């Protein structure tokens, strides 16, 4: 195992992890999206959460799907009384709640800029950056992540809080989260992510991103947003339905005012109630009032007035198809009568 560890270390050094994060492109993307305010406020609202839950739906095969399991166990068969069966159903409900818990849609956390201490006299003695961690147990713990002071003494003598990449790495060394790597896997770098997206294995990448990154880290935001955009370009929205990521995806499109592709897909599948939910979601996020009434009328009003003109063609095609289908249904009814 020691030889294996040595090999992995040399492999990582050769591949230069620090230079591979293209911070300028992330910064540009984040500026455009999060200039409107804090999305977490809206994401955590009760009415938004109910809408998102309704849209995701529930398909047991998809919700409880495991890519890979830790141990290959045989299935167990039990003989249960009615009460015990009810308890098992309740356990199933709890598991369902856990599997459908949506990762929060957040603003990117800001890099700390404060200087705690400035001692330029020490500078000649410091040959590289020194990282100091506080390992005491008193600090507030988020489940699965610890917020401890990590501080760097730079070569110019300044003592600053650590930037978030260093903080994540150091935190993982001293207080490991199961499933998380100290160095982020190479699959999340931009060059390596593209070939993986072609195979359309979105769920695996998203779940791994959830384990590896915090929801407010720039890497998590970059990866998830890139996946959502790829899904929209290839019209694979159904891949994420009845999983925990459908809600955040719908929220993302509502936030950037691009719900037309998703709307068109819902209309194509005759999920008109979901379509109205999505329109109302967008109205809530942009502080407009929710409209209620005839389903078709709401969709048509949205198409005529509020839709984003860049993506309107998809919606137009979908609505035309819907009208044809409805006409065909009416004709069939008249013939049968």
């Amino acid at each position: 195992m020691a030889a294996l560890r040595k090999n992995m270390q040399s492999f990582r050094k050769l591949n230069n992890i620090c230079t591979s994060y293209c911070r300028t492109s992330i910064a540009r993307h984040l500026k455009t999206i999060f200039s409107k305010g804090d999305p977490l406020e809206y994401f955590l609202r009760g009415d938004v959460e109910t809408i998102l839950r309704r849209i995701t739906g529930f398909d047991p095969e998809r919700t409880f799907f495991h890519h890979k399991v830790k141990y290959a166990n045989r299935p167990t068969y039990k003989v249960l009384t009615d009460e015990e069966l009810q308890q098992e159903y309740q356990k199933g409900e709890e598991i369902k709640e856990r599997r459908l818990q949506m990762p929060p849609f957040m603003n990117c956390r800001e890099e700390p800029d404060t200087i705690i201490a400035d001692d330029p006299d020490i500078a000649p003695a410091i040959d590289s950056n020194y990282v100091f961690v506080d390992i005491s147990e008193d600090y507030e713990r988020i489940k699965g992540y610890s917020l401890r002071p990590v501080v760097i003494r730079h070569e110019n003598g300044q003592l600053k809080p650590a930037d978030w990449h260093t903080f994540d790495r150091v935190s993982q060394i001293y207080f490991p989260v199961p499933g998380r790597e100290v160095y982020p896997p190479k699959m999340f770098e931009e060059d390596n992510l593209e070939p993986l997206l072609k195979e359309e294995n979105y769920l695996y990448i998203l779940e791994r991103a959830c384990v590896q990154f915090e929801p407010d880290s720039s890497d998590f935001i970059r990866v998830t947003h890139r996946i959502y955009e790829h899904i929209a370009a290839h019209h694979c929205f159904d891949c994420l339905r009845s999983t925990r990521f459908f809600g955040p995806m719908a929220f993302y499109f509502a936030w950037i005012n691009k719900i037309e592709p998703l709307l068109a897909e819902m209309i194509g599948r005759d999920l008109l109630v979901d379509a109205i939910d999505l329109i109302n979601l967008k109205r809530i996020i942009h502080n407009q009032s929710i409209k209620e009434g005839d389903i078709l009328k709401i969709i048509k009003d949205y198409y005529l007035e509020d839709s984003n003109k860049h993506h309107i063609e998809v919606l137009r095609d979908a609505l035309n198809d819907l009208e044809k289908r409805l006409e065909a249904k009416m004709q069939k009814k008249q013939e049968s009568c």
Partner: protein
Amino acid sequence: MMARTLFSRLIISQSCHNVIIQQLKLAPFTCRTASMVRQISCTVCKFEESDSDERKGPKKTSDPKMEGCKGYIPRFVDPEESLRYMDSEAYKDVYKDEPVWKPYRKNAKGNFYPKIRKTCIRQGAISTASPCPICRDDYLVLDYRNIKLLKQFISEITGKPRNLRQIGLCMRQFKKLQLELAKAQDYGYIEKSFPFRNYDYTYYYNLVSKNKMSESPEDTSQNTNIPAGEPSQNTTEQQSSP
């Protein structure tokens, strides 16, 4: 001799009406007994050059016809060439549709599985008569890009390498398999198992309420990693995979 004397004593004691359970004292076992006589014989050692060659084994060859045999010096093959080999007809001829380790069986005498071999290749040449499935074929190279080959050695359910007794690799190749598998999982070519991540929403509710209370411009202190907070009790739910 010892067993017979014990048994005879037992029979005698049981046959008596008044059975006294005797603590049978075993005589200490020593090497020096009368029956053993040291035998010394003279053997004449005849040394010939042809004998010494045979004892060392077959000569080392690079002859491709001797591929997979004892004494063959394996060629260095590029991992990319190995990728092409996996799709070629030569591969299909030899292995057909089975995984590479299926036709191989380690020579085990009786019920006991032998120790796992350290390596098939010593001093540059194959040093066993039945090398493991990868050492015997030059063109099978374990590499993180060679997903087709790697997937044959892992279990589909867990994403971990299969039991060494099933696949029959030597330790050297197995370590290489572990390394290349880890690299492939790092790149995302092969899937890995990891626990499901759940979030403690109370932290995020607190964040939002803090942000609302502080008026613009937002305090950056809430997002830095030096918390002003007090120690709080958080529920420690266990993350158990369903």
